[in-house]
Structure formats: structure tokens, C-alpha cells
């Protein structure tokens, strides 16, 4: 098999050791936890532990201590990568850029998060506008289930319908069915031209341009006035747009955007700054609706969040708004946040990312509590030792 060496500045190394030598330690931990009846909290880079509901875990399954972040297989000509789940997005990006390739995943929290956690939580950022969520990019994975079995689903080719789709099931399952130890993903070639610009626009106008345009921006993200100011890209509601392609395409796309408003050049790092906005001490909820019906939701979000000092960004093409709400102190706080959430969620689906622990049960119904989901959980993690409680599942 073709192997590529990677530069000395990159920590990741090629390691084609059989999966078992990397994974058996995880199996041992899961088996031990099962025998002891001691639930596990699965931990990757440990950067996002306050996301999701509180986990009733007595022990940590600290994956980076057990699985080294090696590249298992990278053949640039195939535009696919197989890597241990503990590799961070930043480490992967450095390896890929050296070959003129990239992985268009930009979840909240930035590039220090692991790819395993990104996929396990199904996290997506502005790039999902064009490239979809992890669901669209994962080709296969290795997982240690709550039974302690090692499953290798999917593969490392870009099209695959062999067998039932356990890969999709594991993506976004928040580790409740298994700990992800290795993943294969689809890559893209870096385009010859890229440009990021900001345009002042209302949500309705932005959607009209996006839905009518011949151009598919890599990202088109609405930001509230507060967020626009914080990013230094404007002081009103703003559409941040990222184009990629050949020179002629990017030039024409920028011209077309001028029909929406005067495009202002912005630094390319504006995207990483968007993904790094939610520091500690905030609640994060996502609202979603049909893309054509997002504008009124966005207007209400903007008004409500201006009042409470929050900010939001939205991916109109997916119909998703991500609201970042600062948390105060004191007993009033929970009822205040409950009020804000109730005001925001009208005509929209609410998915919470981060909330104060006591608020989960009253604000968000338990997820994965339908009979199919319960059956799946019971099949893959019969003793409920993996991240129990993270979906608010009934016991």
C-alpha cells in the first residue's frame, strides 16, 4: 500500500500497527467498567466537557491516554484519510495542507478538538453550508461498543452501501453506543482561489441572495450586530461569505454578491474567531427551521439577544441559528434563561448544546427516548456504561 511520509514538524506519524494494539486498551477499560458497574465519561481533548447533559460517569475514559493520534492511512490521490480518533483537527489540517488538501470541518471550539469528538457529537460550523455535517464526510470508523466489542463499519472508499449503516448511527451518538477510536473521512483539494468578505444584510435579503445565486459559497454565515462588532466586521447584521474555486469563479461570485450589498474584505481568520466565540460561562442553544422561514426567527433572536447581551450566528442554507447567551449569577438566573429560551424557540426546533445542569430537564425533552433509540442503546450499550445521562435518557 502506498504510504506517504509526513514532515518533521508534524507530530502525527504513520502507524500501521493493527487496530487491536491501539484499541485493546480501550476494550479493557470498557470491560472493566462493565464488570464493576462503573459508568464511563468518554473524554477526547477535554475541551467540550460542559456540552450535553451532565454525565453520570464515575470514571473517565480518557482516550488520548490510550490511543495515540496516528495517521493510519493517507493516500492523497484517493482524497481519503484514516486516522486515530484522538488526532486533533489542527494536527490533521497540517498534514493535509502539506499535500494541498483539507477536511472541511470547523466545529465550535476550534481546531484543538479531536476528530473523534467532532464526529461523535456531529458538530458542524459555517463550512457545513456547502460541505454538510460530519454525517456527509465520514466514510467509516472503528468503535468500541458498550459491550466491549470492536466494530469496524463502512470503509475508506467514497461510496459504500455494504451492510447496514452503523457509521451513520455512531455519528452524532455522543459516545452512547461506543467510543470512537478510528475514523476514515473524505477530503477535498484546496481551491486555487479563496476570498472571505462581509456584507451588511438582513436575514431575508441574505436568504434571497443565497437561494437565487448561481454560486455556492463554502460558507455564508449571518452574524448578529453584537457578534459583527466583536469580530470587527461591521456594526449591523452581517453576512460573512467565503468563496472558493478557480480565480474566475471567485471573482464572478464576489461581483454577484455586490447585488446584496458592498462586500468588505475580511481576514481569513474571521472563521476561526467565529468558532472560538463561546467561552466558558455561556449557554448555547441552536434553533432551526426550514431555510425559507428562518428570517423571522433570526429577527426575533437578534432582538432578544441584544437585550440580554448575547450573540448569534446562523447558517441560512441549513436553516440553523446558534445562540450564545451569557450566564449571570444568582437564583434568578435559571428562570431568566428559561424565559429567553421560550421567547427564542417559537416556530423553531430547539437543540441545546450547553446549559446549566439544572435547566436541561425543564428546557429540553430527553433525546433518544423513542422506542427505536432505546432499543439501539440497549443493543450497543446494554449496561449503560457509556456517557449515561448525556441524552437525558430515562433510566
Amino acid at each position, binding site marked *: 500500500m502506498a504510504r506517504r511520509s509526513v514532515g518533521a514538524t508534524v507530530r502525527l506519524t504513520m502507524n500501521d500497527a493493527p487496530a487491536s494494539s491501539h484499541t485493546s486498551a480501550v476494550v479493557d477499560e470498557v470491560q472493566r467498567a462493565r464488570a464493576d458497574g462503573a459508568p464511563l465519561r468518554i473524554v477526547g481533548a477535554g475541551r467540550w466537557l460542559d456540552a450535553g447533559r451532565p454525565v453520570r460517569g464515575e470514571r473517565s475514559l480518557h482516550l488520548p491516554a490510550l490511543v495515540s493520534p496516528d495517521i493510519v492511512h493517507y493516500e492523497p490521490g484517493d482524497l481519503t484519510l484514516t486516522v486515530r480518533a484522538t488526532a486533533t483537527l489542527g494536527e490533521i489540517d497540517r498534514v493535509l495542507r502539506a499535500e494541498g488538501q483539507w477536511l472541511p470541518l470547523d466545529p465550535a471550539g476550534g481546531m484543538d478538538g479531536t476528530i473523534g469528538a467532532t464526529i461523535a457529537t456531529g458538530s458542524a460550523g459555517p463550512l457545513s453550508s456547502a460541505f454538510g455535517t460530519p454525517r456527509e464526510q465520514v466514510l467509516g470508523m472503528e468503535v468500541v461498543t458498550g459491550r466491549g466489542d470492536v466494530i469496524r463499519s463502512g470503509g475508506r472508499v467514497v461510496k459504500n452501501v455494504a451492510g447496514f449503516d452503523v457509521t451513520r448511527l455512531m455519528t452524532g451518538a455522543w459516545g452512547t453506543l461506543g467510543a470512537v477510536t478510528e475514523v476514515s473521512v473524505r477530503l477535498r483539494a484546496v481551491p486555487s482561489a479563496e476570498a472571505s468578505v462581509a456584507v451588511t444584510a438582513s436575514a431575508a435579503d441574505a436568504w434571497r441572495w443565497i437561494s437565487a445565486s448561481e454560486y455556492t459559497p463554502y460558507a455564508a454565515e449571518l452574524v448578529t450586530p453584537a457578534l459583527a462588532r466583536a469580530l470587527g466586521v461591521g456594526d449591523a447584521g452581517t453576512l460573512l461569505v467565503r468563496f472558493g474555486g478557480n480565480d474566475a469563479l471567485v471573482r464572478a461570485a464576489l461581483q454577484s454578491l455586490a447585488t446584496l450589498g458592498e462586500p468588505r474584505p475580511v481576514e481569513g481568520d474571521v472563521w476561526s474567531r467565529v468558532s472560538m466565540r463561546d467561552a466558558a460561562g455561556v449557554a448555547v442553544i441552536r434553533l432551526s427551521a426550514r431555510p425559507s422561514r428562518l428570517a423571522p426567527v433570526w429577527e426575533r433572536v437578534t432582538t432578544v439577544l441584544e437585550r440580554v447581551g448575547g450573540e448569534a450566528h446562523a447558517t441560512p442554507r441549513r436553516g440553523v441559528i446558534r445562540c450564545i447567551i451569557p450566564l449571570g449569577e444568582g437564583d434568578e438566573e435559571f428562570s431568566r434563561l428559561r424565559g429567553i429560551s421560550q421567547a427564542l424557540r417559537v416556530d423553531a426546533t430547539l437543540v441545546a448544546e450547553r446549559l446549566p445542569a439544572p435547566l436541561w430537564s425543564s428546557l429540553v425533552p430527553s433525546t433518544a427516548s*423513542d422506542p427505536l433509540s432505546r432499543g439501539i442503546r440497549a443493543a450497543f450499550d446494554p449496561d449503560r456504561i457509556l456517557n449515561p445521562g448525556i441524552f437525558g435518557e430515562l433510566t
Partner: protein
Amino acid sequence: MNDLVEPLRAIVGERRVLARAGELRTYESDGLPGYQKRPSLAVFPGTRDEVVAVVRLLAERNVSFVPRGAGTGLSGGALAEDVVLLGLHRLKGILSIDADDARAVVEPGVVNSSLGRAAAAFGLHYAPDPSSQTACTIGGNVAENAGGPHCLKYGVTLNHVLAITALLPSGEIVSLGNADGETDGYDLLGAFIGSEGCFGVALDVTVQLTKNPQAVRTLLADFMSVDAAAHAVSAVIAAGIVPAAMEMMDAATVQVVEASIYAAGYPTDAEAILLIELDGAAAGLDDDAARVTEFCRAAGARGVRSATDPDERARLWQGRKKAFGAMGRVSPALVVQDAVVPRTKLPEVLAEIHRIADRHDVHICNVFHAGDGNLHPNIGYDPQSAAEAARVHAAMSEVMHACIAAGGTITGEHGVGLDKMPYMDSLFTPATLQAMCALREVFDPQRRANPGKVVPVHACREWHAAPSARPSA
């Protein structure tokens, strides 16, 4: 089974239940040649309520069934042996098209290209385009997670389905996915798509439609070796150009097509041709076309020409899409195989396929989605000749194992069905197959829907045993 006929007729009407051997002949085969499996009876509900009533009756009676759309599947997934065949092709309703959000809600029996025609009025289309699109149904596409040439750029069925109302084999109705926003929790929709009729049937499907591209460039490049064509494919992809489609046909395929009524003007002395389509915004498209032409010439293309009008484009595509039909003309039966290999392995795997064909004295034509590494080696043969059928079978088995050995998979878009089950043990570990069985049993605890397909039954035993009770291997 006979005691089912009257209650089923009470639901769907006299003529919509077939039980006599002669009537059932049509339903003994699907697109996979060489198999005749007779269903115990066939039932064809015409409305959603009838489907629900039929499946609930079958659940009450604990009877197994095989869902079937148009029966164009190529892996034997719609073959029903001594069980009820549930035909869904009469549910042809396009329930709504929402131009603002570019989506449609359709019943499972809607033919793929009918949806495309309905969407065209809004400047939209449905992107997955299997070669059988003039006959195959959206329900069948969902069951197989169907692909097609244009999936290189636009993705497969999974990427175009937003929500499904599914009828589980128990008769329970569940909503999968969310057409009005995000879903939280397990990706049940993703699990259902591609479940080959084993998890239940779709009552309605909400699909994402795609805006018609502003401009299209269709190129035809011909090569004096398959290797050279494969290298051109790799060069284009590596350069970051994502064509809408990049299809390869070898000499054997070109000659068969050109001798048929689907003749497209392909050069018959070429060893391989590439049909490459670029689409999107007009700006930059000619630059990409120029670069693709350069890559083809650098890889050794004899000629590269561009379709100059929509008619020529349609003719070039007709040759590709009807290649299977053209092959069908020259032999009584045609096995259309399906496997995927990493793109960089295309030259060596194609060479290996040639060697396998020679060794078994069979004639293999290759016509496939080169941009995805999705091979379709096809063998025309006479199923009446047991000796020839055996040689074909042996050759196909070796082709599958060659693809697995190259790091590939046994099916990219046709499904496992009956045909690919023997290879599942070579592709997946026992624990992985057991996990698939467990997932199936969540949707269908008694495994009554499409029994005996996809995952070999022997793989499912161990999962049920407690770890301590497992036999020591």
C-alpha cells in the same frame, strides 16, 4: 398462505393480490439474472392506508414479506422466496413540491425520472440518477441508498433525503429525520436509508431538490489504454476540480454501445473513453474545462471533444446510461456488478479484472463511475448453460475479492441483497456483522422484512449469547 388471500383482497381489492403460479412469474426475478424465486403471493396496495393495513395484517399473522419498487435492483434484494411480495409501485403520488426550500414530498412508488420532470417546472432536479432512473422508484432508491453518475459531485440518496415517514414491520408508523430543522439523538434516518427493505417501508419521503446548474460542459476524451484514462481521472480529482460526473467505458463497452440503437459517436477503436461533465456557475467553467482537457491530453488522450449543443450532450449521455441495455441485446443475461476501490487502485484492479476474465474465459465489459472508483464490471452470458453460469459466478467472486484486497468494498450503490452476502464475511469482522444484525432487530425483532438478505444469518447468532456462553473459538 392461502388463508391470507381473502383478507388481503378485502384490503386492496380482488385484482391486486396475485396467488397463482402463472400470475407470479413476473415477480420471480428482479434485475439480478440467473435467479427465479417464487413469492407465496404478491400484493399491490394502492394507497398509504392500504399499505399500513397490509403490513399490520402480515404482522398479526407473523408473515414475512419482501418490499419491492420497480424490481430493477441488481443485487437480488427484491427476490421473494415463499414469502409475501409487497409491491409499492402503485403509490405514485408527488404529494408536494416546495420551490422556496427546493424540496418535495413523494410516495415510495414515484419513479425517479418522474420526480425529475415534476421538479423541472421549478428549475430544480433530483440529483441521484441511477442508470435505471426511467423505471426505478424513490422508495427503492432509499432502500438501496442509490447513486448514479452525478453523485460524484452531488452525493448519493443519503445526502438528498431530509425525512421519511416509515412503516416498521410491526405496523408501527415512525417519523425519521426532521424536514423543519435539525434532529437530535441517533441518526435513525441515516440508518434507515440503505437498509434494503429490512427495516420497514417508506410511506413518504421528503427529498432535497437541487437547482439546475447555470451552465454545463460535457467532454468526451478517448484513450489508447485504460491506465491512461485512469490517470487522467486521478489528475482531475487531485487538482481540486469536482466534475458533476466522470464516467469510464472500456473498449468492449464502447463497441457494444456503438453497435446498438444507442450509438453515441464514441470512437470504436479507443481502449477507453471518459465522459466528463462539469457544471455550475458559468464563470470559471471554461477554465475548468480547459484544465480537464489538459489533464486528459497529458495522460495520453488521443482526442478531447466538447458537446456543442444539448442534443449532442444528450446523445453522449444516452450511450452511457443505456450501455447496460445495449449489452443486454447481445447476450441472454447480463450481470451488472458493483464494487468500489480507492481511486488510485483503479489501474491495477482493472488489469486484475482482465486477468480474471481471461482465466475464466468470460467476457467482461467495464462501464463505471471512475471519479468515485465505483466499478461496474459486467458479464453477458447464457444462464441456460450451467457451465457458463458457473464460470461467470467464479469470475465475479474473484473480482469481488480483488476489490476487497485493494482496500475497497463489495457494493457502492446496488446493495448487498442476495448476491453479495457471500462476501460480507470477507469484508466485515464477526462483531461488526453482529452489530448490523442487532440494529436490524431493533427495527424488526422477528426479521420478517426481507428475510435472509444483507447480513448472513450465521453472523447473527453470537450477539444473542451472553459473553460467558460464547463458544470458545
